[in-house]
């Protein structure tokens, strides 16, 4: 049988329809398509895809089960290494990980591994009532700081080994960036909730509304009887550009804009938490967070949304799929330009004018690409005299985040690097005894799956350490 050179298309909501609602964009493979896509896998001997996965999912094995229509069997294989399959199937950048290594991909399009993973996880969530087996308590307690992807993964792996795990979350809902950051149309909140429920069924305690570094310190966790602590507190601090006008009303960090919409449900018709809806919006930045913010603004009713990015389309750090989705939905890319000032309304005659202090526009300068920098990316340089203005009502800064210093400041002996990231060894151990860390708190803003990988490594180190204690 000849191999289909192309991946089976992912069914999606039509662009103009989905741009007006918060329902999931990608609808997922049907059973039939999933089996057909699974048949494209060559089941090659050296399995390069497994190496490409930060948590080393046994990819060809689970795909073989899909081929046989044993979807629960496929799920069992995935869940031996991944605690969040429904999440990863949706938000992992497979094109630069597992799928980039796929043997089939040398000649054709690689196997749609992510789409198959998502199908298997969704099938399981829909059909299975299996209650996960609680492991027998091994007498050791571990505290996890933060309930994002690294914390949940670390918690899941340890709970399966019999550890009594407590996860502390600063916000009122567990999930970290999966809840406050990634929008509903890319990752439905019900899926995150389900994954958290599964962990609870494994015996993990989740304590919301506890800010480690404030409500409790890392030292107090040890006093409470925890024998190891994993810090997965993320990279929560938003960066700004430090240009004039950033304090105007209508300027948001992407964190704030997305948190208002996602966590605080400002997208509802009569929300309790306000957000500026409608009008014209400029999102500054080119990563996945910028795409999320732009597409959220569109769904909240914006008449026009721009992405302002200082390099060219080729350098956009966002996933290709997200960029394509954004373009299809009508988001306009203003590439090779950089904001120099945000302009606000000012009625000199009437200081009480209610429009005073609100954003009216953003002044940008055109850029061109110069010499490559140390990372090999060509450095954008401003083109003199090329300033121009865009009329906008809202500006969203999506130019990255830094690790939150709350824990560093309250934990003596915890060393961080120049950028505030916690320093760890290859096993995730920090400069403090029995304190481990992983995810964005270590690396600065990165991906969900790399954070999960770090949570996994730390869980293994914690297990080895406590087992031999």
């Amino acid at each position, binding site marked *: 049988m000849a191999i289909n050179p192309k991946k089976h298309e992912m069914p999606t909501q039509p662009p103009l329809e989905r741009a007006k609602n918060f329902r999931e964009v990608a609808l997922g493979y049907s059973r039939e398509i999933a089996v057909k896509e699974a048949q494209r896998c060559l089941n090659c001997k050296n399995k390069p895809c497994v190496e490409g996965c930060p948590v080393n999912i046994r990819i060809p094995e689970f795909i073989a089960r899909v081929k046989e229509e044993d979807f629960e069997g496929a799920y069992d294989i995935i869940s031996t290494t991944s605690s969040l399959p429904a999440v990863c199937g949706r938000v992992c950048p497979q094109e630069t990980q597992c799928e980039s290594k796929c043997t089939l991909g040398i000649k054709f399009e690689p196997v749609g591994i992510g789409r198959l993973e998502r199908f298997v996880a969704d099938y399981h969530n829909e059909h299975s009532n299996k209650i996960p087996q609680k492991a027998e308590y091994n007498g050791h307690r571990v505290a996890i700081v933060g309930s994002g992807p690294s914390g949940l993964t670390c918690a899941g792996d340890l709970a399966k080994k019999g550890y009594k795990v407590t996860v502390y979350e*600063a916000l009122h809902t567990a999930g970290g960036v999966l809840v406050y950051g990634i929008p509903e149309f890319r990752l439905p909140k019900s899926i995150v909730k389900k994954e958290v429920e599964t962990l609870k069924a494994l015996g993990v305690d989740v304590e919301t509304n506890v*800010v480690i570094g404030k409500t409790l310190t890392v030292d107090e966790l040890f006093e409470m009887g925890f024998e190891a602590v994993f810090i997965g507190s993320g990279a929560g601090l938003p960066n*700004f550009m430090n240009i004039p006008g950033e304090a105007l*009303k209508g300027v948001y960090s992407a964190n704030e804009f997305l948190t208002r919409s996602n966590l605080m449900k400002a997208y509802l018709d009569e929300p309790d938490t306000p957000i500026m809806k409608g009008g014209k919006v400029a999102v500054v930045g080119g990563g996945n967070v910028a795409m999320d913010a732009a597409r959220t603004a569109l769904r909240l009713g914006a008449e026009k949304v721009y992405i302002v990015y200082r390099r060219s389309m080729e350098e956009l750090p966002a996933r290709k799929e997200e960029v394509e989705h954004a373009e299809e939905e009508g988001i306009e890319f203003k590439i090779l330009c950089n904001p120099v000032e945000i302009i606000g309304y000012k009625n000199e005659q009437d200081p009480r004018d209610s429009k005073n202090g609100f954003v009216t526009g953003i002044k940008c300068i055109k850029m061109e690409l110069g010499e490559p920098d140390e990372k090999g990316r060509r450095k954008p340089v401003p083109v003199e005299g090329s300033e121009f203005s865009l009329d906008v009502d809202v500006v969203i800064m999506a130019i990255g985040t830094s690790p939150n210093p709350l824990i560093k400041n309250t934990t003596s002996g915890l060393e961080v690097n120049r950028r505030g990231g916690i320093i760890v060894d290859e096993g995730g151990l920090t400069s403090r005894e029995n304190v481990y860390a992983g995810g964005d708190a270590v690396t600065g803003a990165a991906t969900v799956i790399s954070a999960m990988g770090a949570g996994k490594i730390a869980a293994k180190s914690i297990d080895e350490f406590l087992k031999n204690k």
Partner: protein
Amino acid sequence: MYRIVRRKDLNKTVTQMEVEAPLVANKAKSGQFIILRVDEDGERIPLTIAGTNRDDGTVKIIFQIVGATTEKLNLKREGDFLQDFVGPLGTATHLDGLKKVCVVGGGVGCAIAMPVAEALHDMGADVTSIIGFRNKDLVILEDEFKACSDRLIIMTDDGSYKRQGNVTVPLKEMLSGGEKFDMIITIGPLIMMKFVVETARPFGTPVTVSMNPIMIDGTGMCGGCRLTLNRNGEKVTEFACVDGPDFNGYEIDFDEAMSRGRMYFDFERRAHERVCNLLKGVK
């Protein structure tokens, strides 16, 4: 869920609640704040901690009904529960080494000024309290201030109780009269704090102000509470939730803070009306 253990109406629009939150009560210091949600899907609002009781693990909050969320909060009775209650957030007020202090409170801000005055009094500092209200009916915590102040001056805008005028009037008289304070600590409406700073400026007395901007998470994540500070001729951005809520009053750009505080004015007015209309149906 967090139980409301005690509740007291301080005046028609200002309510005091003591909420069971032992972890917060254990840690809280004066000047720090909590964030609460009244119900599922509710807004997160920051409120400065007005006191703690470590014996029964309660945290005291005092709030004024200003919008939809505080209106809903005010409906809660003793024994009811709040959805979320997290803290203590922010940094504590620095009181170390202060010997003579003037505490200036305005309106519901007095609820937060009072524990500061109390802490100073307990440290053995000489405390002058100037507290101001719009009128007699709105005066709160008079006895409590009396108990912890060496000198208490009460002002009302309309003169319906004690002395008529703004809190800056007696402050200016004292400073002009040659009185020296190690620090003026002021908590109240932005416009009042701005004028306290302006009153103190010619005399060079240090002023600490307590900022309460719009915020969501309270841990530095959203940046919504950012303030522009003029520090040694340079503009610096800081977050009230982690760097504050206390700031050097001379550094704050009050006009910007006041403008940002009105960002959702229309939304808040509509939301408040909606809740009030709902309540009409109930009552």
